[in-house]
């Protein structure tokens, strides 16, 4: 961990120095060294291969398969082969010709025969609310077959409504941008452009923003609480430091669910925190701490504190007190010494702790569900609801994808500013 340990960078540098001194044989030596390096690398890769394989099989592939659902949804295209054919030449405005109506009628009947009618109805309904019962109703009427199919189709106003055919047409392409756009509160308009959805339906941008705000607030709170505590632990005698570290780690080993449940007991209207505040005379009335943003941030801060504190502490432990003394002896005031000598050395630990907490907060699920109010639900709660309740896994995949992109982008920015090798996690 110390800066004096040799690192991998040393070897190429040595090569370069050497080659400058002896240009003639330098090339072959450098090549030999590279070969030796390659052997090393292959050997270490081979050792890591089982782990990499396990990661790819159990982690990588399922993630890719699930995320691909965000852009690949062949249900409608598979269910409507004849309609897809009939719509090939359609320009997308107005109603298509009668051949398309007839093709749709034929597709509907074959779906009913195959027993896939309901899946089609559900898929269409996800894009066009109300389509479900119209599809099922039309199918029943087609089955009765007392009228020609075209007449049945034209008699149901839904099939001649302005918004219906563009949606069917877009559904006949298996690769779709519908879900990703929805996850960003966008949609295709009838002219083929992208527009914002009406404000009463726009939801996800707000939720993403809220997720980032809550994560930032919790990160800041853990930093404000964690930094002085880490300093305290790093500066007290070893025995006391061990006790303090255990005190920090003890909640760390307790399940998040248990800690969250404990906070609901403490924070509720007639709970201990409110009792205490009233008794101390700090508050005149019982505060709404449960089902509120403030309660959510308190609980999340408690859960995340060790994640921020430990990297900071591990860096602080390595800083020699003599450096500060040296700064004082050179005439620095305490704050200057702290700012110019101490802080730059702690910085990598602070960044690592904050990054860890921030990214973990982006995926919080159980605490917002139990302690947050209706307007404190984070993006994970919406993903869970699309997976479990709505059964719209395409939408869940799209939201997960956007979250993953945001998180990776953020990580990339951090790594760029700081350099990944300077991050000190433990």
């Amino acid at each position, binding site marked *: 961990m110390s800066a004096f340990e040799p690192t991998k960078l040393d070897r190429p540098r040595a090569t370069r120095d050497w080659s400058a001194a002896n240009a003639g044989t330098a090339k072959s030596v450098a090549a030999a060294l590279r070969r030796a390096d390659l052997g090393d690398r292959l050997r270490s890769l081979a050792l890591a291969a089982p782990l990499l394989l396990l990661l790819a099989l159990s982690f990588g592939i399922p993630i890719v398969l699930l995320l691909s659902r965000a852009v690949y949804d062949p249900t409608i295209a598979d269910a409507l082969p004849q309609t897809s054919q009939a719509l090939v030449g359609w320009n997308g405005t107005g109603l298509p010709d009668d051949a398309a109506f007839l093709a749709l009628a034929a597709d509907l009947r074959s779906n009913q025969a195959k027993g896939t009618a309901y*899946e089609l109805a559900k898929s269409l309904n996800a894009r066009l609310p109300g389509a479900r019962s119209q599809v099922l109703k039309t199918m029943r009427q087609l089955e009765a077959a007392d009228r020609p199919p075209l007449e049945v189709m034209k008699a149901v106003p839904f099939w001649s409504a302005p918004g219906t055919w563009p949606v069917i047409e877009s559904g006949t392409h298996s690769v779709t941008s519908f879900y990703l756009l929805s996850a960003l509160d966008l949609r295709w308009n009838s002219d083929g452009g992208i527009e914002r959805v009406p404000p009463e339906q726009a*939801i996800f941008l*707000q939720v993403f923003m809220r997720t980032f705000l809550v994560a930032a607030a919790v990160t800041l709170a853990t930093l404000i609480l964690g930094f002085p505590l880490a300093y305290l632990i790093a500066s007290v005698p070893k025995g006391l430091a061990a006790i303090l570290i255990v005190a920090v780690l003890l909640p760390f080993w307790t399940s998040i669910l248990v800690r969250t449940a404990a906070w609901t007991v403490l924070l509720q209207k007639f709970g201990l925190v409110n009792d205490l505040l009233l008794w101390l005379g700090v508050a005149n009335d019982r505060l709404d701490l449960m089902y509120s943003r403030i309660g959510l941030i308190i609980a999340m801060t408690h859960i995340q504190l060790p994640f921020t504190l430990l990297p900071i502490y591990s860096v602080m432990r390595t800083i020699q007190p003599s450096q500060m003394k040296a700064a004082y002896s050179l005439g620095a005031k305490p704050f200057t010494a702290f700012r110019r000598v101490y802080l730059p050395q702690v910085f990598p630990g602070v960044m690592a702790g904050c990054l860890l907490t921030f990214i973990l907060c982006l995926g919080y699920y159980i605490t917002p569900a139990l302690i947050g109010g209706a*307007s404190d*639900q984070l993006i994970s709660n*919406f993903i869970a609801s699309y997976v479990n309740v709505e059964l719209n896994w395409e939408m869940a995949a799209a939201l997960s994808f956007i979250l993953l992109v945001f998180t990776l982008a953020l990580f990339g920015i951090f790594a760029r500013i700081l350099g990944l090798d300077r991050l000190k996690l433990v």
Partner: protein
Amino acid sequence: MKIANARLFAFAAATAFITMGHAALADELSIMASGGAWQDAQRKAWFEPFSKDTGIKIVEQEYLGDLGKVKAMVDTGNVPIDLVTVETATVLQGCDAGILERLDYSRIAPREKFIEGSALDCGVGLDAYGDVLAYDPNVLKQAPTSVLDIFDTTKFPGKRAMRKFPAQNLEWALMADGVAAADVYAVLATPEGVNRAFKKLDTIKQDIVWWDAGAQPPQLLASKEVVMTTAWNGRIQNAIDKDGAPFKIVWNNQILEYDMIAIPKGAKNPDLAYKYLAYISQPEINAKLASYITYGPVRIDAASFVAPDALPKLPNAPDHMTAYLVADTEFWGDYGEDLVKRFNAWLAQ
């Protein structure tokens, strides 16, 4: 090498033996229900008597009512459950998504013997429950007389709890805004109707605490977090009967719904599952559940078999059927996903 082969053979034989042993024990029915007092009641009323009568062992599993888990089972072709209990709206959803088996009622009971809306293509009704209003008379000095009183914050100040879901709340909002019960779903199918319902909910938005799980409403009342709450009647009655809670239930303008049971696609013992469905759909057996939890039978002809002391607490007891609304499953199948999204957007504003 020989030793390794011998061990391999022993292992294979043991595996085969275990599998065979499992096949011999095939008279086992795996039922997934959503736990709590309701599952306890089902065990006493149905699981145990069924096992006793038929010799078929019932393996119970629990889940939280989310169909996502079942969908994952069906998608991967590994379905370790034979029956799953679900809400009505979920039956429709699961039917549409091809997760639930379409039922052959000739193997269960005549469909017309069930209360309307409780025998669906992919799910058969277990019991009827009411979405009601509950309050603590020690906290509220004046007693609410209708579920719609939840919208009256001047007469009943304080926080109130509602389920974090658009279903029921939108219906009540329209009824409180003067729409007749019979017209609720027709109005709600129009964009203007939806706006009207949300506008009514707006009037109490600041006073609402939202609940997700059925166990929360009695807790919220007990911890005095709220002065009144919407709830499933059985949960409140359970708190009154078992925990001695002082709560009262308001039945006026309740919404009547059904619990359902369904067979997931690819279930391993469909014949046993049908046997169980036929068993619990007999009127005298169907009525037995009411003795253990206050949910009513779904067989029309089961009323006479309900224990007399259980009857007055049921949602479909004659006294409670004066002003009520039957939840429209088809409507929620069509507009559910869209309204959930709109509801979530509204919550976030």
